């Protein structure tokens, strides 16, 4: 029998992992919902931002906040770059080709990272205290990113609901043709969306580097899970993706302790498949 304290610790770790997954899913979900294209290479953009953090903080000794700002800007620039160079020419193509173009980008980023920085795992370690609450260890290095990611999600929510641009973004995600008929320019909305999505990737990269070591195949570790969370939550549904992140992270974390790491992921993926059949519009959608 497994000691309940391990399960409790796994559940707490699951919540912390959920915060990270929610942050990853947030930017992708925004792009997914508004532009209706799956950026297969999204987590690879996060990986590039993690490398930027690593070099600035660990190699050049920049303060963390300055490196974090650079990472945010880099993320936004990459987001706009991907949109203008790859997505814009294929907006009208069949979904397969759109999927594959970003898939080609994934190969490109992964291999170029291998070429530039080899496959060594690189990490930034900060010495932060660890707290013990009721026998469960809570490292500050995981709590602070969790808190920042919650703040970022609230900020994104306010941006989407309280500003003019945010309203335009939501309008496009609901009906892009009607938006064009109203005389609005979808391309501008797309660029802002890509920039915000990229910004989120930059933020995720800046926070993840303190918990995970970065290597060229980092995208494969979190990529599939991130798409699944977006779909599970309902495309473009921010609250749904947020809840879905925690469902997936709890499944992975708890069954990882009870069984094995791989089986944790297997169960999470099977839950995803079953949920697609049961609730194709995501967990927040009403059953048709």
């Amino acid at each position, binding site marked *: 029998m497994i000691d309940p304290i391990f399960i409790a610790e796994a559940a707490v770790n699951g919540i912390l992992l959920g915060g990270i997954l929610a942050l990853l899913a947030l930017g992708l979900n925004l792009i997914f919902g508004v532009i209706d294209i*799956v950026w297969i290479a999204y987590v690879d953009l996060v990986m590039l931002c993690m490398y930027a953090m690593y070099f600035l903080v660990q190699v050049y000794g920049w303060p963390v906040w300055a490196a974090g700002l650079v990472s945010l800007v880099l993320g936004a620039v990459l987001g706009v770059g991907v949109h203008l160079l*790859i997505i814009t*020419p*294929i907006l009208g*193509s*069949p*979904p*397969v*080709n759109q*999927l*594959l*173009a970003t*898939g*080609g*980008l*994934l*190969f*490109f*980023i*992964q*291999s*170029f*990272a*291998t*070429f*530039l920085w*080899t496959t060594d795992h690189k990490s930034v370690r900060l010495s932060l205290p660890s707290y013990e609450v009721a026998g469960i260890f809570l490292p500050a290095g995981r709590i602070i990113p969790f808190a920042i990611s919650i703040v970022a999600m609230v900020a994104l929510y306010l941006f989407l609901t309280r500003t003019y641009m945010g309203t335009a973004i939501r309008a496009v995600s609901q009906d892009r043709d009607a938006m064009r008929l109203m005389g609005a320019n979808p391309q501008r909305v797309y660029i802002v969306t890509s920039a915000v999505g990229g910004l989120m990737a930059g933020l995720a990269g800046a926070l993840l580097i303190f918990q995970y070591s970065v290597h*060229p195949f980092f995208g*494969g570790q979190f*990529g*599939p899970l991130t*798409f*699944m969370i977006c*779909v599970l939550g309902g495309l473009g549904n921010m609250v749904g993706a947020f809840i879905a992140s925690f469902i997936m992270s709890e499944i992975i974390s708890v069954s990882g302790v009870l069984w*094995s790491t*791989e*089986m944790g*992921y*297997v169960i999470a*993926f*099977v839950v*995803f*498949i079953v949920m*697609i*059949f049961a609730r*194709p519009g995501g967990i927040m959608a009403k059953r048709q």
Partner: protein
Amino acid sequence: MSPGRVVGGLFLAVLVAGPFLPLGVTREYTIHVAVQVLIWSFIGGAWSLMGRFGLVSLGHGAFLGLGAYTSTLLWNFYGLTPWLGAVVAVALTGVFALIVAYPCSRFQVIGHYFGLVTLAVGEVIRLLIIAERNWTGGSLGVSVRSAVGDSAWAIQFADKRVFYYGALVLWLGGLWVWHRLDRSMARSAMEAIGEDETAAASVGIHVSRFKMAITVLSAALTALGGVAYAQYIAYVNPDTLSGIGVSLRIVFAVVLGGMYSLLGPTVGTALTIALGEALRIGFGLKFIGMAETIYGLLLVIFIIFLPSGIYGSIRDAIRRRAAGAPGPPARQASTSRA
């Protein structure tokens, strides 16, 4: 005989005589590359049976891995000949595909959603192979237990030419299946379903039966390709035979060549493998990762500028010129979504 048939016949004659052509020291290597092209073209063709009707699977690695591991493990542990192992592998994968395809058609999972469900299925199989490491060897993979000398019973031969002819037969068989489907009523039915399921059902097409049948056929052929590849390489690994990486590689090759034409998957596979080999030889061990970098970049450029595939685009251009007038617009994949 039409000029097309003459060219095709000559091409086939070259392929059959290929291993005996005087290629000097590069012969072994050329045959090795050719076998890989033939097997992966066969797998790509199997994928395109579904892909051309809008069933874009991103998880064919699941079927490939299931097939390769079934025959390999049956041989390693029970000494069952891969000939029978292939039958078991194909049957098992067929049943597995049915289990995946039934709810997909029952709940009308199409478009992005179908892609993501199959992607998850591919990952599930890869992770299960890794998790069952006691007998699958986990992420280290497992070698096919070697028989003593050449053995038709174990499908193990020192001479690569045997594999070459086996792969050639397999490839031709795949083309035959593709051709038969292309000429059948099922193709019209499947195209109608790919365009609009509700409309297809309203004219009396049994939508789920067709979708399930094509999925099982595609999965079974993919499993057969997996068995063939495992026998040739004599080593199976969850990352090279299952999961996202290999699934995407199959799709890339097919889309690059063009999935709406008989030889599209073959042209795409041959080009991607040739490109990979050329870059690998060109850069050697000096710039690790550079070959794949250029490969990825070219993929993006090709998909943006030649969306209906290289072979598809060239063929359409020739046909337009032959007809002397603008031909029908190139068929596009259906853009329906759930």
